[in-house]
């Protein structure tokens, strides 16, 4: 899934940083700095003006609302060069701020206008409370696709070509940069403009992501070098030890040739920029074709995330239920034998967690912590939201004082943003997970599954559905394990069990 990253980022060689006093006369200096950085990253014309405007709105927020009138402080502006875009981070140590209290903008009123402009102009705008480390505003903008560099649907045939029935010879290899345009077009042809992550529609971004090692793209091509299909491994977060198998699609005329499986095998075998503990994949559950392909690739199911994608998500040429938000089956494959862990699964989910690990071919030990004082210190919670998908993730990286309250606050914010599905990742190696899972369940979270080596360690995943009308009978689970997980989830869904 493509979720905006809210974690601190590793410095990049093309990252620029400026520290300024929190005084209004420095506003134009802040804008000029970002404007120059954006121009250096390839932005021009109207996009530069829009970035300048978003920076003013963010910086004046800091200057006018972050501090008391007479308080003299400094704030940092960082510009990061993203593949095909820019991330601007404004970091300050001002007064705590709850973004959920920003009023909704209504034309004719002043309230909420600045944030509305930022969110409209930029591709992503988010606010992060870092506790004692201050606050950050993140602004992301991508370069507009040059003419002819979108998937150019108008240039595509309106009728889908028929599948080639005879078996053909073809090869699978790493994507060449000049093939990125074909990949984007194939993404459009197979999924329309409804893919999880819109990077796939921008050839320039695909090239840069592959250059930076964040994405490994493989293509299937005929003997005549005609593009057939694509698959990729995506490193979602910089610190990840696992990668997501994603962007897998094959042009309609080449389906049935086994290209999906060969792309998958190639990606598992190809050398990686860094060692991977495992690979995971989300297989849509409005049909079973993707789930079947993952089974062939040696993946095993370890969870089901409900209603993570909008109804509009489509897979051309494959019939599937389109009457409710789409759920995904989470599948995992170890790339190395994991060391034996002691896991602190909550008592009421322990058997299921053990069963899911056994399904992945692993036996871990389980511990029961002694009842002691609740976790102290400041909790560290990371979160990210994909507004287009209506899906968010919360990661409890470190338990601490008030962790449940903080998660509840984030949950409330996501609900107000009308995010439909919120997934909560809890570290199974932390004894506090044993003690606090039920507290999170009291907020309305319920079981989703596990994910080994996730961002916060081997994780128990809980999920929360925000007013989603879900018919479990329409969720297509292929394997026996997936069917069992689905039944278990339904039994624990507080709405389904009413």
């Amino acid at each position: 899934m493509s979720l905006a990253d809210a974690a601190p980022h590793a410095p990049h060689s093309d990252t620029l940083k400026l520290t300024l006093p929190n005084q209004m006369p420095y506003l134009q200096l802040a804008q000029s700095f970002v404007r120059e950085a954006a121009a250096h990253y390839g932005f021009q014309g109207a996009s530069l003006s829009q970035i300048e405007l978003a920076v003013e709105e963010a910086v004046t927020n800091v200057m006018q609302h972050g501090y008391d009138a007479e308080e003299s402080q400094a704030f940092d502006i960082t510009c990061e060069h993203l593949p095909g875009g820019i991330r601007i981070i404004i970091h300050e140590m001002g007064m705590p701020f709850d973004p959920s209290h920003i009023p909704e903008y209504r034309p004719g009123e002043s309230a909420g206008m600045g944030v509305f402009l930022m969110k409209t102009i930029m591709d992503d705008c988010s606010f992060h409370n870092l506790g004692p480390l201050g606050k950050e505003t993140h602004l992301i903008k991508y370069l507009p696709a040059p003419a002819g560099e979108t998937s150019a649907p108008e240039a595509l045939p309106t009728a889908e070509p028929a599948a080639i029935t005879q078996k053909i010879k073809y090869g699978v290899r790493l994507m060449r940069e000049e093939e990125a345009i074909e990949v984007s077009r194939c993404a459009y042809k197979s999924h329309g403009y409804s893919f999880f992550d819109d990077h796939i529609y921008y050839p320039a971004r695909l090239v840069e992501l592959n250059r930076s090692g964040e994405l490994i793209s493989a293509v299937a091509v005929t003997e005549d070098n005609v593009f057939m299909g694509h698959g990729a491994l995506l490193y979602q977060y910089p610190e990840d030890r696992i990668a997501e198998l994603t962007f897998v699609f094959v042009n309609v005329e080449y389906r049935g040739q086994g290209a999906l499986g060969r792309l998958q095998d190639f990606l598992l075998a190809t050398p990686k920029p860094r060692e991977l503990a495992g690979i995971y994949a989300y297989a849509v559950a409005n049909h079973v074709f993707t789930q079947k392909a993952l089974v062939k690739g040696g993946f095993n199911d370890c969870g089901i995330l409900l209603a993570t994608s909008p109804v509009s998500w489509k897979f051309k040429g494959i019939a599937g239920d389109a009457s409710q938000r789409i759920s995904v089956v989470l599948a995992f494959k170890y790339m190395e034998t994991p060391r034996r862990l002691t896991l602190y699964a909550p008592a009421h989910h322990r058997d299921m967690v053990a069963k899911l690990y056994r399904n992945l071919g692993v036996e871990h030990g389980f511990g029961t912590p002694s009842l002691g004082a609740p976790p102290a210190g400041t909790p560290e919670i990371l979160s990210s939201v994909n507004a287009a998908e209506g899906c968010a993730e919360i990661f409890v990286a470190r338990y601490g004082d008030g962790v449940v309250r903080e998660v509840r606050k984030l949950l409330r914010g996501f609900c107000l943003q009308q995010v439909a599905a919120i997934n909560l990742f809890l570290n199974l190696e932390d004894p506090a997970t044993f003690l606090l899972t039920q507290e999170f369940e009291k907020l309305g979270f319920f079981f989703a599954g596990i994910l080994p080596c996730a961002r916060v360690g081997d994780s128990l995943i809980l999920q929360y559905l925000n007013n989603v009308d879900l018919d479990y009978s329409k969720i297509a689970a292929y394997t026996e394990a997936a069917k069992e997980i689905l039944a278990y989830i339904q039994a624990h869904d507080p709405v389904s069990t009413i």
Partner: protein
Amino acid sequence: MTITATHAGDAVVLCVAGRLDAITSPEFEKTCLKSINSESRRMVLDFEGVEYISSAGLRAILLAGKKIHAGGGVLGFSGLRDTVKSTMEMAGFCALFPVYESTEAALEPR
């Protein structure tokens, strides 16, 4: 930023040039409000020279618009550059206030 105010009957035209940002907008707001008197029925903001506007400038316009509306008058724009027009459209201002091709068109009797 520079502002030149011209009064013609019940109309006032403000020719604005430069940037309307958080630094300059307080002055712009003050001038706008001061230019509206009990006789004012039309205020035309000639923005041909405005190269940039942020929410601070838009808020000032809203205040001026509310003041002139309260007296039964109307506020309109002329000479909008693409960048400025795009921001104003985004914020819904082009639906709230009339936009004219030119100041002359804005001042035509109606």
